[in-house]
């Protein structure tokens, strides 16, 4: 059943945070202000690579309204940060490695005064050769950006003997794919308010995906115990992975500590572009071979990622890509090598999809090319090579068993769009099949013209398959947990260390509690995003939060119910076995459901008359595969995407006019949130495919704002989009709902590439698609030229 409001019935609910969002009452952390607050700004490097010879701040310190000017000399603790490796300086002192590197920070009474102070700081630089590509960074005589060289991380995975296997292949396809520097473009740029406290040293109100990680990182920088810092981190105006790492927090924190006054920082869009993380640009070369029957035999992959100047999660992203370049298919011989390279380009890091987007674009491109060489239907070709349920994962690791792979395969096969494609092919047999040996261009008049009056518009339908891991993977601490408690005022509080950045986590949790305990919305209070009140539930990342909340609620259900019912039983002098929880309080079970039910004890009365705290807590870890392969995943979500595109061969523009997404992720926890994740993810993928690229030359951004960085607008989204969730899990599956936060952002790019191939006979291997590659000389000019000849 398609996912929409009508089919969801009562489970389609108004979000608890909805009202404040539609009325403008919601206070984002960058909306906060306090009397006496100062404005903070950061001085950043104008050069992608330079030595610092001197920094002079005296003039700036003397300016009116300026309360602090800080440099590396003013960092009491560790002058570095990074979730995985702390190699990014808070303030640079000997060298800058990209145009976002910070050298100083100021706090002043007004923005203008802060700007003047920034301008008055003098820094002497000596420019150094700019390593603006991995190739340059890997040259023998290249400057070394870090003591351990210019390679952040290498990974590899090998089985069998690919070279020998290639000799036995009937068909081999080799292609190099490249992907753009995609920007998260959360609408709320980085920022926050930093408030020195009396009860504690520092209160930080700044978006992040993991408050406890920020607290840990700031405690190192400030050299204070973690308990001295409180991090309030929700609500968030979008993140998509981009706000997981620290951004303005070190500067806000240091300035507030130094001045003893509240300091606000809110990045301009340009500041956000130049400093913020992007999706790793990757170049992926694949050589893939099959036998004459279409069975994959050999798959060789080389991945090079441009990770920019510092580590953040570059190694982890690379590991993820390394795992996902083989995907859901079986091959006896695999040879993957990957490398993440430091450069003087912008920072790359965590971004929804986490390296899977690039890997799967390339992998699915190979599948389409090979199917075509074989003269096979691309979807049948995939089926022939799909792993069986119960097979190990891409790294040969045990994975949780589901039928997801076959389920989404079948669901796409039966979809309206795929049937449309098959019908079109029947009318024009062979249209999707170009003779082998001519892989780059097919006959261009194969494409099906959308409208006979506009023969330059060509339509095509394509599909792609996605198997995407969730959780952090083997070898990375992946804690989870939460707490349920009956508060003094009778509300049932659910307390989790997760963050709300728009995905609808609060709404999902509310619905879970309503359905698990039969509560009314008014019975519930949800507390998240504040290190003072929540347990550390791990990061809200890697599509893990909903799964972990579900598991937590499952774990706490019996202990919490038992605690409440036993306390109620004592008060009511009844056997707790005769009682149950419901809307507003405790009911008698013997009364049965419906009319006869009687509210025996409101939660408020229960809370008022018990001294002991009624609560349940759980702590556990995200399930991991029992192997020692770092980054290997255990839980996977499966999806398939079909799209119909219209290519204007005069302009080369591609329009996606129809989409079908099918996702096997177990039960739908929150229909509105699920639909929104898939629709929103696919919009992000559309930008990745067609328009988005933060362009850099020589280590400098040419893209500065949203006039040149083109995210999809509503104009690109008037087409149809169907989302079909597949909810069945194998009987007894203990893991429940799988992550869906990222998978929607993955499959669209290769599906569009396949559809473009069908429409105009061209293979796309570089994103975003360059319209110039798809332009054809109009028919009438060809004629005119012929006459003149």
């Amino acid at each position, binding site marked *: 059943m398609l996912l929409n*409001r009508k089919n969801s019935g009562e489970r389609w609910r108004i979000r608890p945070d909805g009202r404040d969002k539609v*009325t403008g009452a919601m206070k984002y952390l960058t909306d906060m202000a306090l009397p006496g607050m100062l404005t903070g700004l950061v001085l950043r490097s104008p050069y992608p690579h330079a030595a610092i010879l001197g920094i002079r701040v005296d003039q700036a310190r003397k300016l009116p309204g300026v309360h602090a000017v800080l440099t590396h000399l003013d960092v009491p603790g560790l002058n570095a940060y990074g979730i995985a490796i702390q190699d990014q300086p808070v303030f640079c002192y000997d060298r800058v490695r990209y145009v976002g590197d910070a050298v100083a920070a100021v706090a002043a009474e007004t923005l203008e005064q802060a700007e003047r102070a920034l301008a008055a700081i003098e820094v002497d630089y000596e420019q150094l050769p700019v390593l603006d590509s991995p190739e340059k960074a890997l040259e023998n005589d290249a400057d070394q950006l870090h003591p351990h060289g210019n390679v952040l991380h290498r990974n590899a995975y090998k089985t069998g003997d690919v070279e020998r296997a290639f000799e036995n292949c009937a068909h081999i396809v080799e292609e190099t794919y490249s992907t753009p520097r995609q920007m998260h473009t959360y609408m709320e740029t980085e920022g926050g308010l930093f408030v020195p406290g009396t009860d504690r040293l520092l209160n930080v109100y700044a978006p992040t995906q993991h408050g406890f990680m920020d607290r840990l990182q700031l405690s190192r920088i400030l050299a204070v115990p973690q308990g001295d810092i409180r991090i309030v981190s929700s609500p968030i105006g979008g993140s998509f992975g981009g706000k997981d790492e620290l951004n303005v927090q070190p500067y806000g924190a240091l300035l507030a500590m130094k001045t003893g006054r509240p300091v606000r920082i809110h990045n301009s869009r340009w500041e956000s572009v130049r400093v913020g993380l992007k999706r790793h640009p990757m170049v992926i070369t694949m050589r893939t071979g099959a036998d004459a029957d279409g069975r994959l035999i050999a798959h060789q992959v080389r991945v090079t990622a441009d990770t920019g100047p510092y580590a953040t999660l570059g190694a982890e992203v690379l590991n993820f890509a390394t795992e996902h370049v083989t995907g859901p298919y079986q091959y006896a011989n695999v040879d993957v090598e990957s490398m993440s390279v430091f450069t003087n380009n912008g920072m790359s890091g965590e971004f929804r999809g986490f390296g899977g987007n690039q890997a799967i674009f390339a992998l699915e491109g190979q599948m389409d090319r090979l199917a075509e060489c074989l003269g096979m239907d691309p979807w049948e070709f995939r089926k022939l090579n799909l792993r069986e349920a119960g097979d190990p994962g891409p790294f040969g690791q045990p994975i949780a068993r589901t039928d997801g792979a076959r389920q989404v395969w079948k669901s796409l096969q039966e979809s309206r769009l795929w049937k449309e494609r098959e019908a079109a092919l029947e009318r024009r047999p062979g249209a999707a099949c170009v003779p082998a040996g001519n892989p780059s261009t097919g006959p261009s008049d194969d494409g099906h013209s959308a409208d006979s009056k506009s023969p330059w518009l060509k339509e095509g339908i394509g599909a792609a398959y996605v198997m995407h891991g969730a959780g952090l993977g083997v070898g990375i601490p992946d804690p989870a947990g939460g707490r349920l408690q009956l508060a003094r005022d009778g509300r049932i509080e659910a307390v989790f260390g997760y963050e709300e950045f*728009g995905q609808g986590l609060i709404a999902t949790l509310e619905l879970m509690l309503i359905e698990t305990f039969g509560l009314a919305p008014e019975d519930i209070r949800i507390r998240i995003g504040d290190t003072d009140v929540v347990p550390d539930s791990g990061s809200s990342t890697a599509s893990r939060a909903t799964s972990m909340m579900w598991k937590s609620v499952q774990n706490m259900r019996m202990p919490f119910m038992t605690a409440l019912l036993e306390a109620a039983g004592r008060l009511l002098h009844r056997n707790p076995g005769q009682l149950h929880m419901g809307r507003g309080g405790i009911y008698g079970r013997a009364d049965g459901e419906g009319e006869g039910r009687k509210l025996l004890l409101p939660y408020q009365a229960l809370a008022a008359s018990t001294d002991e705290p009624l609560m349940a807590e759980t702590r556990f870890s995200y399930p991991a595969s029992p192997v020692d392969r770092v980054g290997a995943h255990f839980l996977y979500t499966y999806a398939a995407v079909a799209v119909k595109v219209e290519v204007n061969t005069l302009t080369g523009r591609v329009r996606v006019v129809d989409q079908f997404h099918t996702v096997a992720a177990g039960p739908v926890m929150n229909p509105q949130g699920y639909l929104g994740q898939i629709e929103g993810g696919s919009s*992000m993928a559309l930008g990745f495919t067609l328009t988005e690229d933060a362009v850099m030359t020589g280590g400098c951004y040419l893209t500065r704002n949203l006039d040149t960085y083109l995210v*999809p*607008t509503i104009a690109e989204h008037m087409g149809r989009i169907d989302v079909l969730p597949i909810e069945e899990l194998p009987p007894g599956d203990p893991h429940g709902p799988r992550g869906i936060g990222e998978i929607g952002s993955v499959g669209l790019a290769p599906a569009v590439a396949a559809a473009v191939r069908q429409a105009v006979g061209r293979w796309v291997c570089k994103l975003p698609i360059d319209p110039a590659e798809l332009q054809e000389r109009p028919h009438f000019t060809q004629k005119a030229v012929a006459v003149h000849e």
Partner: protein
Amino acid sequence: MNENRAAERPAAPGTELYVNGNRVTVCTEPSKRLLHVLRDELQMTGAKRSCEIGRCGACMVLLDGRPVNACLTMLYQCGGRTVTTIEGIAPQESGGLDPVQQAFLEEGGYQCGYCTPGMIISVKALLDFIPDPTDEEITEALSGNICRCTGYGGIIRSVRRASELKKISSSDA
């Protein structure tokens, strides 16, 4: 304008405008952006700051009923005029919501919500002028409002729902 003359000009007497029905006098330079005035002088943070170059629509407000980007509008352009922000579009009685707001709630036309105030302003302006817009009219009215979260599906459904709700409420009236 000649810069010296600007420098010699006596301190601005204050610009008078009407914000959500209230007369306010703002004593800041008339060349300040309306977005800054709303957020930092009047502490009304419903209009959001995002691109500040008129590309994203997060800062949208109504100026005499027409949608404008508050990040591109100067204070002096607002003198004597009526500014309506997201905080002011709901009917005054407590708990009231504009049909557009109601529709966004019902359809889930938002996620992080950061684009939502601007989006709702643009939709309201659209439906005030064209109660039953075509796809082309929706596209034209909203293509200056970027939403990074929803993929616009929920927004398009909200616009259609708002159009319905408005019809229902006007036929009730």
